[in-house]
């Protein structure tokens, strides 16, 4: 890792090493550790841009949009064959519980979860809740 490459890397990927390309991350971190004075200014600058980018906010999906998307699954042929809407009603409850469980998980962990991780936690919670409620392929799809 050269100084030139390190500066190019953080100009593109920012100051957070977790975002650096995986194949260069270790070398870049070693370079930064070995040359703290040389990289400090560039890291401060890159961190400032990272902070600006983090200020961008986008809307979360509305319940109406979620409902339309779920309904579109049935329209695309991914519908339950036996129980009509009952599975959907039960899973709506599971979905709400999934949100709550995921939120609690974030608080309990005491960390700032990224949107991506939060979404994954919600998905896992929904699947878990559904398993507890016995909504599975056997019952729904027969």
């Amino acid at each position: 890792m050269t100084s030139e490459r390190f500066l190019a890397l953080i100009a593109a990927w920012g100051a957070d090493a977790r975002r650096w390309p995986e194949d260069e991350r270790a070398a870049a971190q070693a370079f930064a550790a070995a040359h703290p004075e040389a990289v400090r200014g560039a890291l401060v600058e890159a961190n400032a841009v990272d902070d600006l980018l983090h200020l961008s906010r986008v809307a979360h999906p509305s319940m109406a949009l979620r409902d339309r998307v779920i309904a579109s699954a049935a329209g695309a042929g991914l519908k339950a064959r036996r129980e009509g809407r009952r599975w959907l009603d039960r899973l709506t409850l599971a979905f709400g519980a999934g949100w709550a469980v995921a939120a609690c998980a974030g608080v309990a962990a005491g960390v700032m979860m990224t949107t991506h991780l939060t979404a994954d936690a919600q998905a896992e919670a929904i699947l878990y809740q559904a398993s507890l409620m016995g909504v599975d392929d056997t019952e729904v799809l027969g």
Partner: protein
Amino acid sequence: MALIADPDEDLVRRVGQGDPAAIQAMVARKLPRMLALAQRMLGDAAEAEDVAQDAMLRAWKQAPRWTPGQAKFDTWLHRVGLNLCYDRLRRRREAPTASPPDRPDEGPSPDRGLMAADVGSRVNAALAHLPERQREAVVLCHYQELTNIEAAALMEVSVDALESLLSRGRRALRLTLADIRPGTEGG
């Protein structure tokens, strides 16, 4: 060709089988990502909802015939979402009578403090005014958290070219938003 490990593989399989819980979980996992992608690419909330909904509809149709190991489902879905965004951006360019979006406010007014919402709006406006390819690179890498390999492949550019787009985009944002000092805005 080496098989690609995909964290969505099991979920996609279950969606393809019509598993209702998996459909709900897929919505929780992917709809926010598709909506965020479209919002930042298009800068229009209503259009972004249409794109996200359309992308998810295509996911439902694809799931039953998805072949694991050849690509990540998330990357495929981003390709779908990006193409839908491209279509809309192209239509905007080709519509001579369509009025361009209002030029967003690019500076704080004297009588307005830098509230967090204002700052966020200014960052979004600055993103919206980046050249399209720079915006795409920043959105895919910073916000959608794709790897350099994934983002470069989606954009059909080399990793070096992707880095160049990222650097230019970040530099332009820094210049446009030079008066903002993160951490000083109100909540």
